[in-house]
């Protein structure tokens, strides 16, 4: 005999597709971004940017600009002696720019990374500039990669890495099939719709407040403190709704200079970058050039991989070079490998992360190689990948073990998909001179880690208040609220979650690296469990019962089996806030650090049609299968998978920042920097695979980055299936495709 009771496990929490609570405000235009803020006395900032990629400023005369009525301040580097790395109504500010007279001495330009690597290239960095690997650290540890001294006189090589195992020369000599190619992926922009923006204001005590569009308010605070030589305690960063980041809003960009202008004018100053500034002077993804040679035996045994990866980092070091090396040599089991990596500086914008930095580029190379080897060996390309895919416990190229992941599962799911099974029929159905093909690819992300914190509080009405400092760029707040609901034992509609500013919230990391739900979710579980324990202890006293006999059910703490004996969460909450009360307020806090990553894999499948005359690719179907560990909020996850896949397809098909030989951007608009539109795409089908992450909250693993990885290879593979032509340079544009077919 048993009475069916609703336990905490039955609450409306994880696993439900609950819409984001900010939906109504977003569809009615009420959500506030930085550019929407308009405080009394607001001034507008503008930057005069150099028209040259490399030049020396001989003289700046700001006197005419300063004399323009309405201009409150004009600052140059001379006004900011402490400015370390990256350096003014709107119409007046724009006019003032035209009145600043600058005399330049134009200097030689390093525009091509392959030329820039050579001795004698025009130097990019100031002497003494250090390699910057902080981005790599934020995105996941890469222990075990050796670094080498750079060849003398190659002044623009800012980082080097090498990964080696076995005897590569011998292995190639014993190989029956050797494939060698050079893959190129141009610089691409993260493409967030909201340009960089910040509002800065100082108070009379010397405290700075920044309303920022950022992926990490604490990181913004640290970087601004560092550049302006301020105490972090004197800076408050208020994270506004972030109109997309994708890695491009990790580093501070326009915040320091806006703060200096606010100080100079003693007024609130707002700086919103134009789209042209975004494209010319934002922080795009690096160009990646990979020379790769792979060998196998006739029986399909993989023998060796030799690769040289060149990451063009723009004007400053900061590429995740070691991650590139690890990806190239770790996904499939090559017993012998020699992978060299070079980060090269050029006179272009400093690069930053872009959703799974360097994973799409490296996976494009390695997956294209696997496909070609399978073809040459005459074996099934999926079976070939599955045979050699590294499993949990296998050694990655840096000798770290692969952790539990769903690589096999996601690829297997797609191999069972009708679109894959019917690829021969699709190809055979080609008509009207068009060529049909199907392509598949597998990629992933190792998963990032960073310490974090969360608090969970019981309110006097019995609801929960969750607070973190984590910026919600991907729907993570609703997922965290669901986690709190399930861990504490109330329905999601009783949970409110807030992202606090840097003065009030627990310190936390970046919303980057596919680690927000993975890490902050754990903090929320722990804080909710502590709050639950406190709640039950208070109830135990009130009910004169043992804590072990208590359960939270429908907003009450009840004695198990005696449903009439209970106390409401609201009365426990009220007792914690009553004058002269002896009941402690319920407040759970947790602040964990982490050591175990959770790799996450995604496989993608494309069914396409190519017009061999024009080179146009029509996408008929696109399927994404992804291991998410545990789907905390399936609808939000689908949104991530679909959005990531379309960014991946953009990289595959249309996107490139194009520079001339003076390193000037030739396509600085969204007309010429071509992103995919709704008319270019089919609906993106999603398949969620759940292989629990051992340390993830309820088994969840990171979701954001994996879906941007596989499409370039999947599309290149599909184009080869359709046309017989193998393309190795992105984007796979109509002209590239048509020319390749014509010359085949």
């Amino acid at each position, binding site marked *: 005999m048993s009475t069916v009771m609703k336990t905490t496990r039955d609450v409306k929490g994880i696993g439900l*597709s609950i*819409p*984001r609570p*900010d*939906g*109504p*405000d*977003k*569809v*009615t*235009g*009420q*959500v*506030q*971004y930085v*550019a*929407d803020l*308009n405080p009394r006395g607001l001034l507008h900032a503008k930057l005069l940017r150099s028209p040259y990629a490399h030049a020396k400023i001989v003289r700046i005369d700001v006197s005419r600009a300063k004399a323009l009525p309405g201009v409150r301040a004009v600052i140059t580097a001379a006004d900011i002696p402490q400015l370390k790395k990256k350096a003014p109504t*709107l*119409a007046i500010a724009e006019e003032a720019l035209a009145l600043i007279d600058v005399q330049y001495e134009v200097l030689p330009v390093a525009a091509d990374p392959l030329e820039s690597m050579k001795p004698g290239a025009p130097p990019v960095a100031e002497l003494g500039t250090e390699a910057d690997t902080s981005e790599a650290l934020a995105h996941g540890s890469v222990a075990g990669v050796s670094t080498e001294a750079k060849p003398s006189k190659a002044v623009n090589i800012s980082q080097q890495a090498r990964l080696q195992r076995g005897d590569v020369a011998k292995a190639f000599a014993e190989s029956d099939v050797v494939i060698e190619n050079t893959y190129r992926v141009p610089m691409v922009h*993260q*493409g*967030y*719709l*909201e*340009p960089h923006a910040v509002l800065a204001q100082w108070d009379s005590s010397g405290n700075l407040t920044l309303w920022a569009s950022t992926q990490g308010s604490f990181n913004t605070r640290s970087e601004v403190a560092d550049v302006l030589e301020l105490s972090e305690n004197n800076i408050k960063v208020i994270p506004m*709704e*972030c*109109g*997309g980041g*994708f890695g491009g809003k990790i580093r501070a960009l326009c915040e320091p200079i806006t703060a200096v202008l606010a100080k100079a004018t003693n007024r609130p100053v707002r700086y*919103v970058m*134009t*789209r042209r500034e975004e494209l010319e002077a934002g922080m795009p993804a690096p160009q990646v050039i990979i020379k790769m040679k792979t060998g196998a035996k006739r029986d399909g045994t993989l023998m060796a991989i030799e690769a040289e990866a060149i990451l063009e980092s723009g004007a400053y070091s900061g590429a995740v070079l070691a991650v590139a090396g690890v990806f190239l040599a770790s996904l499939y089991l090559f017993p012998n490998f020699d992978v060299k990596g070079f980060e090269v500086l050029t006179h272009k914008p400093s690069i930053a992360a872009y959703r799974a930095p360097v994973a799409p580029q490296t996976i494009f190379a390695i997956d294209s190689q696997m496909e070609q080897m399978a073809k040459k060996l005459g074996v099934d390309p999926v079976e070939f990948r599955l045979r050699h895919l590294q499993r949990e416990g296998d050694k990655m190229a840096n000798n770290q073990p692969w952790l539990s992941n769903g690589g096999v599962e996601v690829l297997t799911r797609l191999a069972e998909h009708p679109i894959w099974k019917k690829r021969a029929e699709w190809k055979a159905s080609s008509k009207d001179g068009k060529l049909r093909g199907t392509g598949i690819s597998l990629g992933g992300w190792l998963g990032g880690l960073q310490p974090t914190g969360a608090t969970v509080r019981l309110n006097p009405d019995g609801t929960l208040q969750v607070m973190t400092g984590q910026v919600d*760029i*991907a*729907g993570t707040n609703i997922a965290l609220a669901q986690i709190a609901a399930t861990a504490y034992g109330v329905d999601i509609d009783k949970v409110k979650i807030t992202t606090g500013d840097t003065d009030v919230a627990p310190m936390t990391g970046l919303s980057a690296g596919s680690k927000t739900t993975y890490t902050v979710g754990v903090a929320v579980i722990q804080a909710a469990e502590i709050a639950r324990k406190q709640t039950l202890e208070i109830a135990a006293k009130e009910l004169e019962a043992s804590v072990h006999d208590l359960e939270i059910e429908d907003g009450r703490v009840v004695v198990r089996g005696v449903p009439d004996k209970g106390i409401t969460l609201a009365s426990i909450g009220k007792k914690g806030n009553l004058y002269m009360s002896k009941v402690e307020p319920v407040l759970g806090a947790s602040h964990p650090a982490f050591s175990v990553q959770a790799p996450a894999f995604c496989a993608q499948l494309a069914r396409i049609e190519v017009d061999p005359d024009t080179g146009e690719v029509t996408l008929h179907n696109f399927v994404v299968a992804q291991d998410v560990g545990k789907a905390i909020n399936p*609808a*939000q996850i*689908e*949104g991530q998978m*679909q*959005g*990531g*896949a*379309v*960014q991946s397809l953009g990289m595959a098909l249309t996107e490139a920042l194009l520079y001339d030989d003076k390193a000037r951007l030739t396509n600085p*608009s*969204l*007309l010429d920097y071509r*992103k995919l*539109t*709704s*008319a270019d*795409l089919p*609906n*993106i089908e999603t398949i969620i695979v759940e292989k629990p992450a051992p340390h993830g909250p309820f088994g969840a693993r990171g979701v954001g980055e994996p879906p941007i990885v596989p499409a370039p290879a999947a599309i290149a593979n599909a184009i080869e299936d359709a046309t017989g032509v193998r393309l190795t340079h992105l984007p796979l544009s109509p002209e590239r495709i048509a020319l390749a077919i014509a010359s085949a």
Partner: protein
Amino acid sequence: MAKQVLNCTVNDELAEVLVQPWDTLLDALRERMGLTGPKEGCGTGDCGACTVHLDGKPVASCLLLAMQVRGRNVRTIEGLGKPGALHPVQDAFVRHGVPQCGFCIPGVIMAAAALLTENPHPTEEEIRYGIAGNLCRCTGYTKMLTAITEAAGATAGRRS
């Protein structure tokens, strides 16, 4: 040049504001009238985030001078529906969890609402082309298509 008086109807109310001759409609809405729902994503008419209705037709408000709308009827996202009385497209966007970062959303919804007024029963392809002038970087458009398709049914249903 002196400021000029712009008289027009905005969200069903008569508006009278001072604008500079070079102010765009988007500038006037955002900076002079406090209607920050329309967004500036590019300023060159390529992204669609600033889409509003001018006499019922979708326009990129960053490409029009404010004085061009003198005497005309402008509707922004703020005038399309309110919480509790959402337009069917807005309602479907919320229920399907379409908005992620949200920056493109006001423009997409205005484009979709205009499409459904002109063509209450659009095909999938007509919806795709109806919002092809609106760039979105977060969603991949799939959930938008689902939501607009459903709203088309809802809109048609209300009329019959």
